[in-house]
């Protein structure tokens, strides 16, 4: 299992690093000045070797442990609307970077579009504490989008804790599906 996991991480890490090079710095105040930034993403992009071939990830088994970072959960477009998280974590998974950048680009290009980041936790632990934990997940996604240059007025956060599960079972895989942030377009849906 572990030997299978490592290549996956290598792949997403590579993708993440390639991605990072074209992102603004983590100072998210620079991200607030809006439209002018849309066009200047290409000059910063380093010389890319060639169109990267999307690795075939279909052979990587989907488990509760790697669910949050599994490439099959993210298609890299705004069609992907759910970001998953590891247990007790609010780190945005590398496999979701491309998807989140697609949403960021869309939001920057469509000032009328507004999203709500709906944070969720699995059922373990107390309810109000889980509300707080799920808020941290939404905030991590919010920060990612802000760093990409999305205006704060296009973002809203709601934290549901364990109150609105996506999977109703009580096993590790159900919990993996429930630790998530849903991207809900309130207006200007792609």
């Amino acid at each position, binding site marked *: 299992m572990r030997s299978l996991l490592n290549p996956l991480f290598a792949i997403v890490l590579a993708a993440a690093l390639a991605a990072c090079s074209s992102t603004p710095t983590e100072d998210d105040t620079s991200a607030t000045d809006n439209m002018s930034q849309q066009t200047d993403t290409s000059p910063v992009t380093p010389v890319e070797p060639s169109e990267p071939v999307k690795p075939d990830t279909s052979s990587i088994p989907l488990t509760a442990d790697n669910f949050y970072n599994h490439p099959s959960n993210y298609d890299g477009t705004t069609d992907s609307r759910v970001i998953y998280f590891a247990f007790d974590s609010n780190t945005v998974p590398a496999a979701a970077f491309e998807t989140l950048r697609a949403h960021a680009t869309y939001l920057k290009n469509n000032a009328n579009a507004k999203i709500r980041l709906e944070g969720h936790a699995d059922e*373990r*632990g107390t309810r109000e504490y889980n509300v*707080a934990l799920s808020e941290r997940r939404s905030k991590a996604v919010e920060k990612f989008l802000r760093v990409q240059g999305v205006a704060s007025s296009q973002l809203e*956060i709601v*934290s549901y804790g364990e109150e609105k599960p996506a999977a*109703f079972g009580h096993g590790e895989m159900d919990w993996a599906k429930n630790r998530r942030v849903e991207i809900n377009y309130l207006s200007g849906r792609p």
Partner: protein
Amino acid sequence: MIGVLRMQQACKRKVWTQISIALMAALWMVNAQAELLIKVTEGRVDAVPIAVVPFDGAQNAPEDVSQIVQADLHRSGQFKPLPPEDMLSRPRNEQEMIYRDFKVLGTEYVITGSMKAQETGGYEVSYALFDVARQKKLMSETYRPPESQLRDVAHAISDRIYEQLTGIPGAFSTKILYVTHNRHDANPYQLQYADADGHRVTTILRSKEPIMSPTWSPDGRKIAYVSFEDQGRPAIYIHSLATTEREKVSSFSGINGAPDWSPDGQKLALTLSRDGNPEIYMLNLSTKGLTRLTNNYGIDTEPRWLPDGEHLVFTSSRSGGPQIYKLNINDKSVRRVSFQGAYNARSDVTPDGRYLVYVHRRNGNFNVGVQDLQRGTFNIVTRTDMDESPSVAPNGSMVIYGTQHGGTGVLEAVSIDGRVKVELPSKEGEVREPAWSPFL
């Protein structure tokens, strides 16, 4: 802690008696709501043998007061009622009392009574309590309730008998507030309350969006809760049970959660993340003034007032995982209270302020633990998993909490010493977040 575990093992002689009160009552209940069935899964081995003789005339009444009294006393775990079919005689009053018929069966106390329909409507309900060893009547009373209040009278009698025999006021006339979730329902989230024995369910609110953290005002007339009904955003509402009027008292950006009423009823402690991350605030309900009480980069939530009205306990992640802290609301000083294990959260406090009851994680299981603030001891009092939202009865005798049976949320109650356990499984859907009312 080990001592208590051993004691629990010694209690293996479980009282696997299922009370049929819920079934019986269901025959009469006009209200078709899902009632909570109550089952005593573990009573004390030293439970006091008692006999509640079926009341004269009860078979013709809409509610059998003697059955309800028997069930109440049984549910406390402190009494072991003699099944009526085992009684050698069934006295209706003091004149018919034959003490030796109960003495030979080891019964220590006997309750007799009668129910008479009145020509003017309503009932006359009389009862008497006898001490078998001393061959003496301890107390007797008569009530004249309308038919609709027979259950109230039964619980009042249970309260009187319980206090007479234990020295502690009974909590049978109280209510339990809770949230139900049935995802197949058009309004999956419902806020309900019921008698402490699970009967007479009243629905307070139905919603498509989550309802959380219900809690009682100290006078038992109002409740506060979190509802996401307004476009999926959380707000805290105060809801008057008698008038059903309600007021939205908190709807800031971010989290509006975990309301808890101050003992004087004037203030609400709550969690808000409007200033960046979850912090504890105090809302003055008359002036609407808001005071921030915590200031920490960690999560601060789940405040509960201590009875002195000067302190709160709350959950904080300031040391890593969640732990219980105590806050002085005057100088805002904070002191850590829980030290065992890596996860302690959502505390409640006994009315005397002596015990803290909270959720404790051990080996991946979530259980209810009781910390004795005087002695500093800590005991885990449940053996289920996924236990949450413990709420202490107003007489401090029992803790009701949410847990899971076969993947479904149910309520259970346990005595503070862990020796008595009671299940309250629901017939449909999930039941969770119980809040035990004050004395009403």
